[in-house]
């Protein structure tokens, strides 16, 4: 589903030599993976390489049937729609309601029929428990609710991959726990969920697999055996 083959990444003009160095990884369908590491370990860069917000400086990244070496410019939006993305700072559109935020990502693919939009937004907002607040603007919601809204938006296209970059970074412990429970549910529904975090404790609680990055390299890659519906 996602494969990194000897991936190197360097930012132009950066003082550090490699942000990612010779990373070879494979994420299987339906996995719940945590990427752990200190700041600067390369977690965010690794996530950005999946959605091709960044291109590898060396090696290649394969996501579904898309290859970072051969993908066309017009295919990148398609790839991104097949990967839901959730960020630490939520990145909701502030001047649109929660419902409009979710609907917007559908409208960009040409879904403009009101009933179709309404059905999908209702489904995902119910899924994240925000249907009652569908007409609120992001600034009227708590951090946890905003993150739920961001997850709802990410789920609108029913992505097979969900990438969450520090999704609990701006939340307190309880809210963080709720968000990861929600992500775990999404995972159990069949999506591959990749969470970048520096919270070892949360990872131990929710992950099926933990990959630790250090200075751009994979230090450890461990699978954790436990019942499928753990932590719910």
């Amino acid at each position: 589903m996602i494969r990194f083959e000897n991936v190197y990444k360097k930012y132009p003009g950066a003082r550090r030599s490699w942000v990612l160095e010779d990373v070879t990884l494979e994420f299987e369908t339906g996995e719940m993976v945590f990427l752990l590491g200190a700041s600067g370990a390369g977690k965010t860069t690794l996530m950005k390489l999946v959605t091709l917000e960044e291109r590898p400086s060396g090696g290649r990244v394969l996501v579904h049937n898309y290859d970072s070496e051969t993908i066309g410019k017009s295919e990148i939006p398609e790839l991104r729609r097949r990967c839901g993305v959730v960020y630490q700072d939520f990145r909701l559109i502030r001047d649109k309601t929660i419902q409009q935020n979710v609907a917007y990502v559908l409208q960009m693919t040409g879904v403009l029929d009101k009933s179709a939009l309404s059905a999908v937004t209702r489904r995902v907002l119910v899924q994240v428990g925000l249907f009652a607040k569908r007409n609120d603007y992001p600034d009227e919601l708590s951090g946890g609710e905003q993150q739920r809204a961001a997850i709802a938006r990410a789920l609108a296209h029913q992505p097979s991959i969900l990438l969450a970059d520090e999704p609990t970074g701006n939340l307190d412990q309880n809210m963080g726990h709720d968000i990861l429970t929600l992500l775990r549910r999404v995972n159990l529904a069949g999506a591959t969920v990749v969470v970048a975090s520096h919270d070892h404790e949360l990872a131990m609680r929710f992950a099926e697999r933990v990959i630790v990055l250090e200075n751009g390299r994979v230090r450890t890659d461990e699978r954790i055996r436990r019942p499928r519906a753990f932590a719910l």
Partner: protein
Amino acid sequence: MNQFRFFAAEAWDYLIRGRGTSLASVIALCAVFFLFGLVLLVSHNVQNAAESLESRKGLTVFLVPGVGEERGSELARTFEGFGEIRTAEFVHRDVALADLENDLGDFPIGSALGENPLPHTIRIELEEVARARAGALLSMAHELSNYEEVDEAIFGDQFVETLEQNLHMVRMANLSVGGLSALAVALVLLTTLRLLFLGRRDTLRILKVVGATDQFIRMPFLFLGGIQCLMAGALALIFLEGARIFFEALFPGVEPLPVAVRLGFLVGSALIGILASFAAIEPSLRRLEQEPEEVVR
């Protein structure tokens, strides 16, 4: 149609959210379109004036006293053989006098002076092609004056000729002002849409990340440019009508631009807006992809 409505609604939303910038932009665009419209209006009226005077474009050839009726008619036939001359009519001096007296309200010039002061004349009308050519009358007058039986070849409507030459200048001015207007529109939109784009950069970046195509991001801005220019064009037409009424008070008979021209003006404004928006947005769109907002974690 749904997509059209969606993008139009998005553009309207952008317009309302950035109403300060939008208003400034529409005012600036309106001024540019008004200037262009003014040149069109002047040109249209000068053209009309010239056309209404077209029929008066002709030459009167005065023959030297003593040239007989027969020779005069022969000369008229010779002149008619010239390529640029449509008709050459010999006019007897008595007929010419009668015509003149008629023109002056039957004032008896002949009786007053005791004799007919006019010589025989030949009235010449040019072909359409020659009439449309600036300077045709002047060169023809020079050519006919070379005949020794010709005393003088005059065109009393010389001002028509001057008008025609000026009309050519007005047409050139029109083209220049049109080109400059398009450039000014592009500059105004370039500035305002870029400002708007910058203001929404974070939102647009989010859209990119969640899978929006360039087309999806670009379209509302193109619509916005089109809407702003359409509004500015419509306002300019209103002001133009005001200007026309003002000019009419000074120079009676000033006509408004024809409906087709006004419609073309509006459609053209919108098209210029869309094209200028495209030029304004493309570089910003490319930069959006290239600018990293990098935080390495």
